[in-house]
């Protein structure tokens, strides 16, 4: 619709893991907020270099796992101990002992669902398109190149090009939205 495309951000390409690592530290220390690093594999220590805190995925696991365990215990108590009590082999109608294996499996099942769907929710995935996919160069972010993108909506965006150049970027391009 709009005739003049809006810039999404400035994309800088780096050759090695060490280069992107040093660049991330410089961008972090310069006080940028709307920026990200794109690498073909997770780089050890990059979270600290970017100033990111611990991931909250574990909370989703906990909620899922707790729900699973509670569901298992309640379901078995309801079915075998409450709704149709039936004595089998003189065993108690309900104890957590025989209910444990199934509740345990449900803990793991729903814990895994919580972990994975929590991770996707935090990452805002899946999505079919992203402005960075407009860049031909960016295709190598899943191969052997390392990218750093400072978004146009960052308050310090006007200084971004100079910073990326001085950080040793091999190529810098403006990506449109």
């Amino acid at each position, binding site marked *: 619709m709009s005739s003049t495309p809006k810039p999404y951000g400035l994309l800088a390409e780096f050759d*090695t*893991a*060490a280069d*992107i*690592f*040093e660049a991330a530290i410089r961008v972090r220390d310069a006080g940028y907020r709307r920026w*990200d*690093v*794109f690498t*073909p*594999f*997770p*780089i*050890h*220590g990059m*979270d600290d270099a*970017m100033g*990111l805190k611990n*991931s909250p*995925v574990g909370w989703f*696991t906990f909620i899922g*796992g707790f729900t699973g365990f509670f569901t298992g215990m309640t379901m078995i108590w309801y*079915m*075998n101990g409450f*709704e*149709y009590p*039936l004595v089998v*082999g003189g065993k108690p109608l309900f104890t957590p002992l*025989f*209910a444990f*294996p*199934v509740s*345990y*499996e*449900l803990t*793991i*099942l729903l*814990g*895994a*669902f919580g*972990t*994975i769907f*929590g*991770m*996707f929710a935090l990452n805002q*995935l*899946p*999505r*079919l*398109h*992203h402005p960075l*996919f407009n860049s031909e160069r*960016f*295709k*190598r*972010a*899943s*191969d*052997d190149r390392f*990218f750093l993108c400072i978004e146009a909506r960052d308050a310090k965006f006007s200084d971004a090009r100079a910073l990326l150049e001085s950080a040793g970027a091999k190529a810098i391009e403006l990506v449109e939205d």
Partner: protein
Amino acid sequence: MAKSASVPLSAQAATGHAHSHPPAKTVVLEDPPAALVNPPLVLNNRSLGWITNKIAGICENPMPAWWLPAFIGSAGLMGLMYALIAYLVATGVGVWGLNNPVAWAWDITNFVFWIGIGHAGTLISAVLFLLRQKWRTSINRAAEAMTLFAVACAGIFPVIHVGRIWYAPLFLAPIPNSNMIWPQFRSPLLWDVFAVSTYGTVSLLFWYVGLIPDLATLRDRASNRIRAIAYGIFALGWRGSNRHWRNYEKAYLILAGISTPLVLSVHSIVSFDFAVSVVPGWHTTIFPPYFVAGAIFSGFGMVLTLMIPMRTIFKLEDVITERHVGLMCKVILATGSMVGYAYGMEFFIAWYGGSPYELYAFKNRAFGPYWWAYWSMITCNVISPHLFWFKWCRKTMWFVWLVSIVVNIGMWFERFVIIVTSLHRDYLPASWGYFTPTWVDVFTFVGSFGQFMTLFLLFIRFLPVIAISEVKGVTPQADPHHPLGGAKEAHH
């Protein structure tokens, strides 16, 4: 070997700035003795781009000429299995050789055999991940795929062995039967339903999460629009963002953490199917750890059976190195020794426990009508893994491959021995019997291999057989503090 071992340190010396340190403070790092240095996980110092091209290239280029005939053959066997299942359902379980007292035979043997094989994948992806065994990255993808396909084969047998399988939804799902009685949660058979279905689901999720970055690689390399869209949809828009990697790595760690007790629980619960009964030969407390060790033993056997040809055919020797194969051989040696110990301990307890029925069951196992099955099992499972004490045996690929097949034959016999020899001699001599398989038994089992191979061939055709991003992550090029990763000065 000595040359490759000294690469990091000599490269460090070449790129380090001698003038930046005063001579008095220079720390001299001596090369450790060559015998103490492990060979690198990716040989020949391959670049990141080489890894992508090599592994993604397998599923981008046309398959070798043997692929199509192999696929047609496997799919044909799979079709045969489903035809025999249709025959079974239409006719009744009498088409199998089952009888009284041997009411469980090849069906449950095949179930335990396949579910056991399915243990290696999650063990490699979860347990070895928690133990920081970086060599797992070269083999985890194919091993996890193998796990899923083995579980897909395992799931068939308990469902079809029940006779009237159209009632299966009623007893698999926790809903009341026609008399409004709910499923019986005191029964290990029901625990098994939950364990196996949880295991299948979590293994699939774990495998898929691991695939996402590699699917993004295939999407970005796609040569035509159909491939870009197909891989793009399954890659879910992954773009390698570090803000995503942060959550992804945490999720992967948590999945590994919760899959580890899951792996151990699944075969423990399978063993409860037997151990909770009162049949001599089944009623044994050693079963859970013994079954888990056996499952890992057979799973690594099947991983090697598939990996060694794959490594040679697709020339992956730099990624799946002799060290990887040797380490897997050592896992087989360790778990094979545990299995051998369990066989011995069962006999000891049968004697020491003082139960005449138990002692008879084990004497009968070794010297009764099924002596041939017992001694096949002992030869394959107790003797063959000990060949891996010798370095030549671990380094010679055709030999490892042969032993891996022997291991799986042995593990099939183990399940057959446990199930059939324990059942065929009941407490009452009047109900003693003997089981012989029919042709339907045999070809249903053979057909399950067809399904397994069909799925595996499709996997190598369409998906990266090695975890590309994970292998890159364990190379020195990925380490920002390593000279090969571009570090100006080593921070060690």
